[in-house]
């Protein structure tokens, strides 16, 4: 039933100049402040950044779930398969949500009803969106539980969410999200609450399902290790802005922004010698009271006078690599030189 599989250069999603502000006692929180990006069909986009950088609000904005008030999408376009979701009626958006765009969250209990059997929750999805009969919906629910690897699915379908372990609940939520074969899956920290071995299970599952169905994915996480293995493109967010965006491999190999470089260096590398870890000094800024100039200036190790005065430009480095920094070109060239040096030393 996918409508016009119209071709926007193969883009399933195009976000342009999105701004979402919250009106709080402390002033206007510019949670997302003028971000733009595209997602092609079948691709996975990662969004990384520290707590409060605007990752979740970006995605709540895309699916129009920003709590209003205090929140408000003040500008921008979210073009999903040719339609601007921000100007559609609530009714039309509700039809897209769950059916064509599905979400999974860090805490599965935000999507699961604790008082309803798992089978019924899955059945409601396909009865509502795909017009399944009770019988069809039930069989589909069982099939989905099997797909996500719930052992003995037919018996477990009659359980309530609290009767599952954390990892299994996450699977049930994924089964629910994928039950209508959405074109876009948004996963907000889907494994943050889980142990590494269970995290590995869930990530493998998302990869496998993606390969099988061709679903596009937006994966939000603060773990650079996860995005390294799971994504094609990457956005690095800081204080409501995109600080850098690039294909994942390129971003790791030749970062063009001091914040990205700092983030990459502050993750311990298990294969390297121990020693002092690089640390970004200071704290993420309070987005209600940003100073003029670059929001990272107070923490940046190559800050210049201009950074305190002028907001940095979003510099295009290569066809699909951009960085928000007065010195983006220099930083990028340094990364390239470092890359060349380290690959020489590996020979």
């Amino acid at each position, binding site marked *: 039933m996918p409508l016009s599989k119209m071709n926007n250069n193969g883009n399933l999603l195009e976000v342009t100049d999105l701004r979402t502000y919250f009106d709080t006692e402390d002033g206007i929180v510019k949670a997302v402040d003028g971000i733009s990006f595209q997602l092609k069909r079948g691709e996975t986009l990662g969004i990384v950044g520290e707590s409060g950088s605007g990752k979740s609000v970006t995605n709540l904005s895309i699916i129009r779930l920003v709590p209003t008030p205090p929140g408000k999408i003040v500008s921008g376009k979210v073009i999903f398969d040719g339609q601007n979701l921000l100007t559609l009626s609530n009714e039309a958006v509700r039809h897209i949500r769950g059916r064509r765009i599905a979400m999974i969250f860090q805490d599965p209990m935000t999507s699961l009803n604790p008082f309803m059997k798992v089978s019924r929750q899955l059945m409601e999805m396909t009865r509502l969106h795909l017009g399944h009969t009770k019988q069809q919906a039930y069989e589909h629910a069982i099939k989905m539980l099997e797909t996500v690897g719930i052992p003995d699915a037919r018996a477990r379908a009659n359980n309530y969410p609290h009767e599952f372990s954390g990892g299994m609940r996450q699977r049930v939520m994924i089964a629910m999200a994928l039950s209508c074969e959405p074109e876009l899956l948004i996963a907000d920290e889907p494994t943050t609450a889980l142990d590494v071995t269970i995290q590995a299970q869930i990530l493998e599952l998302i990869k496998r399902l993606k390969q099988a169905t061709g679903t596009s994915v937006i994966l939000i996480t603060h773990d650079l290790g996860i995005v390294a293995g799971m994504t094609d493109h990457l956005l690095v967010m800081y204080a409501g802005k995109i600080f850098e965006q690039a294909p994942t491999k390129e971003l790791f190999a030749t970062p063009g922004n001091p914040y990205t470089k700092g983030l990459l260096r502050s993750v311990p590398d298990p294969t390297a010698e121990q020693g002092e870890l690089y640390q970004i000094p200071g*704290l993420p800024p309070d987005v209600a009271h940003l100073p003029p100039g670059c929001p990272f200036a107070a923490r940046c190790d190559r800050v210049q006078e201009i950074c305190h005065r002028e907001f940095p430009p979003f510099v295009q480095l290569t066809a699909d690599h951009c960085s928000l920094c007065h010195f983006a070109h220099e930083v990028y060239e340094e990364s390239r030189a470092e890359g060349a040096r380290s690959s020489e030393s590996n020979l």
Partner: protein
Amino acid sequence: MSTQETNPDSIVEMPPPIESGHGDPLIAIRDLKVYFPIAGNRNVKAVDGVTIDIYAGETLGLVGESGCGKSTLGRAILRLVEPTSGQVLYRNNDLAKLSTRELRKHRRHLQIIFQDPYASLNPRMTVGQIVGEPLDTFRIARGRGAEQRVQELLETVGLSKRFTKRYPHEFSGGQRQRIGIARALAVDPDFIVADEPISALDVSIQAQIMNLLEKLQREKNLTYLFISHDLRAIRHVSDRVAVMYLGKLVEIAGAKAIYADPLMPYTKALISAVPVPDPVVEATRQRIVLEGDVPSPINPPTGCRFHTRCPYMIETCKQVVPPLVEIKPNHFAACIRISPDQPDIEKVAPGAAPGLEAAEQVISQ
């Protein structure tokens, strides 16, 4: 699970190994058990026979999945929970046998910092009161002296001394963690249990706190038990690493060795599950994905507790509780399918259990 098939009488429990090495340990843990009684006359076997030495000046990393007993072990060392059996020796003193006064004297040398900087600080006390409280409890300083000490401590952990009059809610997660560390340092401890001290923090702040803990260790010759489920952090801060599974230690080795050369199948899976922040490595990496969840510590599997998820399991694994054996120098692992002669489980003949003989020798000695 096929635990019902095995006859409990046939289960062999082997004695823990005596560790060789680095002179007298600061903390010696001997066959420690902590059981929590629950309804129906049953027990949660949170810690079930742990033996390990912690040496002065080292950081011992403790990893394992949630619920495997890490926090309980850390708390039992400090006697914040009462051990069910076994010993904890601090400088060769059995803490359980000391009088209240003697315990108090030693107790101040053992401190803890917690995962959740939000929950572990009293919201109604000022930072000055929080950090100064142990000075009073252990009668170390009062009045002006105490005030001055608190200011010094705040500066030691990288906070402004002007913060003394402020309340915890006015601080970020990383700053609160620093307050917790200042409080632990107040009494000049020599051993600190750091229970998931960075798990609730952002990446950039995690690096700050890890560096701070390492700096303090160098300056004050501290010994840490660093508990975390984050193997990358553990690898970074630890000298040695102990891996825990369902109440038991299953592998102990140098931090580098445990990463580069894990021997026991659970450790192998754990290490392979860690995402590496390098897309080139990730693209070609073979991951061991374990099936199923961690079993319940109320009714843990018989024999090797990992047998329900272990890809190398054979029938004997359900019957023999593998002891920690020194498979390579200073590298201990609990698995009957490997031995010092055959340390690589991949190369062991199908169905063979070379560790069984070595294990039986341990018993007969």
